[in-house]
């Protein structure tokens, strides 16, 4: 390339005139420029028109199937009292009696481990049921439940609870901390990691300020007992929210009532489902409606009446004092049942106790539909009046004497989680054990109930219907054949009322796609 940029004339054959040489040089230069621009244009057009494939690839991922974990269930242990009967050691939890525990599994053997009890070392501890996976990785279904009949001077009644899965978040709807009503929170940590638990208490006034409810340490493998009255006393309608960090715990609430000196029943209930806009509470037992009604007119017996306690924890967009609409339906658990429903407006953020209408005796499935996620539970009572206990005839409150109860008990019925897979039920010993199944799906469900020893049963439950089946206590049953079901177990007897919901089996972890980088 010469410095001047002009063509050397001697290189062009036959060109002798300088002018012609110059013109040719000009044309040549422009032509070369066009060629160069054209080359770039060809590059661009070529890449536009010819799709070129991508060369090379990344490393991809590996699908890791986690090693199967044990299935754990925690049985809360005996009924607990703070202090002795005489009132000594009022800040120490002391267990009363010991429950009867029924447990079973479909594959393999359930191991029963004792956890470290709260309070006194001589307490009967809570139990941990552990089902290990087989060598092939297969794991069976596990279940357990416990029941206890209390007849202490200050504790009377029947309490039954199922052995439950751990959770990092539990809503306990029920209890009271007014005078004579003791609500004890049982926190059990079956894992090998200490857990830090925070407790929130809602009431009819809204969220209570419980500064001491934060960061309760529940050591690994032990149980702690906490009195709700210590957090917030004088609450007629508390709802307790337990969340844990670290190891996951199980939370149960034990409520016992003493009216002056007369014990008024005991109940242990476990967590309701997480807040949801559609709640199903199966197996609500309505017993002795007239006796309950007449007894609840007596001062201090108001909380015998049946109520639906509901809480919408968060209002929409954080606004306080917003009202939310809810629709409550009651489905009788009989064949050809016709549900009845009612619409209410309740305030978000505050616990509301709705009195139940008068229902015929029997069991019902309550459904609650709200615009915002809510938690709910139903409390009913059983009352045996003194007069009617003697001769069995209906009590009347017509004479001037207030009715006196010979035996009474109450129970909280919590909302049941949806079961989508086969499950196992253990029915602890107790009077009048019934299995309640509610089909909340859109299709009719055919449910097989297989006793672990003995014959089975197949039931067809139409969509939106519920059914109650008597079961033998002390027995375990396997349920199968449904796609969506809600189930619970209830007990009813003379001065005995209890119930617990059936939880799904803990899921094995899904496979995880693991990339590098």
């Amino acid at each position, binding site marked *: 390339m010469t410095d001047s*940029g002009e063509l050397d004339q001697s290189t062009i054959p036959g060109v002798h005139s300088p002018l012609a040489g110059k013109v040719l040089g000009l044309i040549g230069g422009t032509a070369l*420029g066009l060629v*160069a621009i054209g080359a770039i244009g060809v590059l661009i057009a070529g890449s536009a028109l010819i799709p070129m494939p991508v060369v090379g690839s990344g490393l991809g991922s590996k699908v890791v199937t986690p090693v199967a974990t044990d299935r754990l269930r925690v049985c809360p242990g005996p009924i607990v009292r703070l202090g002795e009967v005489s009132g000594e050691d009022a800040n120490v939890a002391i267990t009363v009696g010991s429950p009867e525990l029924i447990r079973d599994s479909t594959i393999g053997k359930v191991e029963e481990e004792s956890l470290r009890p709260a309070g006194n070392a001589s307490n009967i501890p809570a139990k941990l049921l552990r089902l290990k*996976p087989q060598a092939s990785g297969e794991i069976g279904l596990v279940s357990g439940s416990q029941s206890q009949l209390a007849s202490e001077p200050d504790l009377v009644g029947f309490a039954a609870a199922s052995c439950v899965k751990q959770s990092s978040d539990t809503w306990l709807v029920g209890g009271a901390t007014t005078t004579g009503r003791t609500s004890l929170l049982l926190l059990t940590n079956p894992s090998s990691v200490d857990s830090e638990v925070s407790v929130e208490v809602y009431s009819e006034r809204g969220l209570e300020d419980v500064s001491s409810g934060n960061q309760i340490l529940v050591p690994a493998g032990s149980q702690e007992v906490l009195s709700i009255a210590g957090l917030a006393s004088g609450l007629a309608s508390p709802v307790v929210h337990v969340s844990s960090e670290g190891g996951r715990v199980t939370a149960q609430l034990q409520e016992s009532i003493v009216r002056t000196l007369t014990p008024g029943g005991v109940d242990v209930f476990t967590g309701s489902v997480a807040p949801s806009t559609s709640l199903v509470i199966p197996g609500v037992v309505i017993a002795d409606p007239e006796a309950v009604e007449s007894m609840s007119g007596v001062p201090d017996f108001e909380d015998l009446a049946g109520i639906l306690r509901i809480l919408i924890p968060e209002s929409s967009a954080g606004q306080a004092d917003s009202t939310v609409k809810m629709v409550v339906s009651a489905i009788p658990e009989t064949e050809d049942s016709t549900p009845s429903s009612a619409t209410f407006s309740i305030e978000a953020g505050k616990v509301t106790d709705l009195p139940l209408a008068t229902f015929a005796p029997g069991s019902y499935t309550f459904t609650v539909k709200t615009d915002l996620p809510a938690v709910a539970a139903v409390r009913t009572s059983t009352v045996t009046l003194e007069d009617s206990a003697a001769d069995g005839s209906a009590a009347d409150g017509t004479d001037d004497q207030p009715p006196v109860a010979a035996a009474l008990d109450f129970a909280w019925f919590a909302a049941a989680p949806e079961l989508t897979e086969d499950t196992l039920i253990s029915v602890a010993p107790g009077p009048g054990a019934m299995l309640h199944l509610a089909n909340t799906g859109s299709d009719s469900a055919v449910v097989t109930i297989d006793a672990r020893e003995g014959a089975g049963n197949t039931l067809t439950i139409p969509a939106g219907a519920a059914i109650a089946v008597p079961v033998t206590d002390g027995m375990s049953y396997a349920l199968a054949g449904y796609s969506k079901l809600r189930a619970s177990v209830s007990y009813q007897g003379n001065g005995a009322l209890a119930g617990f919901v059936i939880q799904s089996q803990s899921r094995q972890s899904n496979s995880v796609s693991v*990339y590098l980088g």
Partner: protein
Amino acid sequence: MQPRVIAILLAHSRSEQLQLTIESLRAQSRQPDKLILADLDPKGIGVREDADDSPPWFGSVRFDSVTKVRPGSSLGRAVQLVLADLKAEQKAEQKAEQETEQKAELKSKADSAAAAAEKSEWLWILREGSQPAPRALFELAAAAENSPSAEVVGPMLLEAKPEGQIASLGETLSRFGAAVQLVEHELDQGQHDDLDDVLAVEAEGSLVRRSLWELLGGFDPKLPSIDSGLDFSVRTRLSGKRVILAPKAKVVTAGSPETFGGARTTPGKSFRIARAAQLHRRLVYSPVLATPLHWLSLFPLAVARSVADLLRKYPERISGEFLAAASAAFSPGVLAARSRIRSEKTASWESLLPLRMPTRELQARRALERDLPEEGEEGPTGGNRAQFFANGGVWALVILAIIGLISFGSFIAATAITGGGLRPLSDSVSELWANIGYGWRNIGAGLQGAADPFAAVLALMGTLTFWNPSSAIVFTYLAALPLAGAAGWFAARRISAGRHLPIVGAVLWALAPPFLAALAEGRFGAVMAHLLLPWLLVAGLKAARSWGSAATASILLAATTASSPSIAPALAILLVVLWISHPLSLHRTGWIPIPALVLAGPLVIGQILAGNALGLLADPGVPVSGSPAAWWQLAIADPALLGQSWTELLGRLGVGFGLAEAPAGIVILVLLAPMIIGTVISALLPKSRRGLVGLAVAALGLATALLSARIQVGGIANSPVFVWTGSGLSLYWLGLVATLVIGLGYMGSLRVLLGIVATLAVGVLAIPLLAATILGTSAVTASDGRIMPALVVAESATESEAGTLVITSLGEAGISVRLERGAGAMLDDQSTLISARKKAGEADERLQTLAGNLAVPSGYLAADEFRALDVEFVLVPASSEDDSTHRQIVDALDGNEVLSAVGETRFGSLWQYSGPRDEPTGEPGSYKSPTRTGYLILLGVVFGAALLLAIPTGSPKRRDQFGRRDQSGRSSELQSAGEEND
């Protein structure tokens, strides 16, 4: 008595030069008494012989005899053979005479007559091409007659071209034995006609008494050409005889002594012969006690002088230094020469001192030479070049510096920069240097293999700011725009004429979209490549003519291909074009790829052995994932980030201006239009033919970018990593800007408008990219030098290699895992051997299994793996609120019994494993492996030599240190075309 002159003419071929010599001989005013031809032509000169006994004749001259000499013999050897023949002839004559005369009494008389005849016989040594002036022999003989004690008389040797320049008029020795010409670079104007006694004269054209020749045994056989006359004259002086000059006797010389025999010599070969001669003389002349010391010093001196040669840009002399040292050390002639001197010496060395050149005078001479005016550099079209200070270069850089400080102001007090492709550098300089070459790659699970060449660039930069190596990156960011502007300015000045055009080049280069995109994404290799490309262009353009530029080009090529391997193929093509277009300069330009090849060699071998040749194109630094630009974006020099930032800017501003819907591509096209139009006009202008080379470079760059967009070199988690197209686009931009700048020079008055408009338009185009750091759309942020939580860093201070498992939630796609050792893998720990690997190894699968079982509740015995892999921490970076996978991971880790939660840190949630961990078994392959050490030595030697050669020393190459005749006088055309001009 009239001296008898026997002229000995040595001819090696029947050439024009021989004719000239014969003509001159014929024209002599005083003819020699005998004329003998020494025929060194293997085919014979073609001397004709008549049928009778008459002397042979050639051309128009009759020779008295012809002696056949073996071709290739030296001058001294030829003369010896001639004399031997002559003696034999004279003896035969004598014998014939003796037979016709009385025997006994006449024999001694004949002997003494022969001896007396010998004493008065003089040899005149001429070679083919010597052209004595008509009065030359007369003057020489007159001088010999006037000084009876003189036994060697030398003429004034003149150059053939330029006429009248003195080639040699006496030689002398310096204090240390170097040969020095008494007269250099002078025209003969009669100023030296009074020179008489000298230490030495050159052999050609000199008159030597025959008895002296016999006494001294001729020239030293170990000095065949250079210094043969010098050595003979010194020995003459040592034996008490005088050596004089006859300045009025003028002989035009055939060439310097080593050209005898017709061989073409290169400067390198001449140097070797001269150096060998000097060393031989040193060993011969030195006092006997000093000789062993001189002998031992031969090799170390050769090494030291090689370094000096590199500095003074004479790299072709290096081989000569060592060969000369070897030949002087191991030649057997030294002892013979010493014994010869011992036997003939009658005077002492001190007596020669007045004739030698004192050091002071020598230094004064050298100083005078240095002051001779240098040639100035001219611009490509002649005329004045733009001045950096006077023509606005400084202002352009100041404005760019201000823009750069505004744009990257948040980095001013930063310890380091993190994000995108950047991480801080290791804390200490020793760690930086330990990471280059071949060794343990301390990233992730670790690997024994070759480092990226870029690690060497980072080590160098980190050493410059040794107190905090990461500051080098911070300073580069702050000074990025002015540095690029300076590079563009000097490159534009190199290729174009025009006072203010370099400013266009500076601004266009500094605000190039690929450059700003690389800065915004933290692709430091691409940033360095963009900064170095113009300097590489400048050095490459001059490499064919200059050793220093070739060395600079080689170092810059190594640095550029190390920083951005994706443009290595394009640069290789350009290098091949350079080789093809300047084939005569291959001895200089052929070395250019050597440093780059040595630097990249281990990695190339490693990747090819691993079957991953594509991985060689992977960009160094932290891999950055993302999808590459589409073809139309690449065509407008946009590596996808420009369009994105314009879309973002339009989205923010467009509401008010109604431009919210305008696609960014249109805006970019409009803003680039002036530059594109200017480039097209430049290409079409017939005068700017050199601009077409710029378009060719642009085409190469665009092709590189288009291909880079199709090459995936790995991935991070589930996102692919492609080769960064911005480096190819930098080359593309370089070609376009070069074409534009060259063309603007020829556009006349249009260039002002077009230049300003194009520059301003590109300035506006760059605004969203410049504002990326301010607006927060840039990936890089200032950091305090930590990339791991404080607890991890604190632990790494005591136990350096405890690992941290980093588990990142990918939402629905799963999770991803990586292992960081110690305080994390820094920028110089990154390795493309690992980031561009094609298959996950066994260590990777172990990590994946462990992470998969940690992220969900699992019965896996994680404690065993933590212990075996020496992992102490698990870190889960934060994710968005509704990422259920993230919550699941946190819950699972919370519930894991072997891990205890440390808490939330700036980098995510941290858990710690407190159980016992295996001691690391030591790195396989320690730092001291011989491969590593050997490679580092090789690297040091190659780059050290290139660096020494590249350092500009600015000495003009007129003086030849051996006191020989100035070669440049003969070959002035060669000098301007091809010789050194540093």
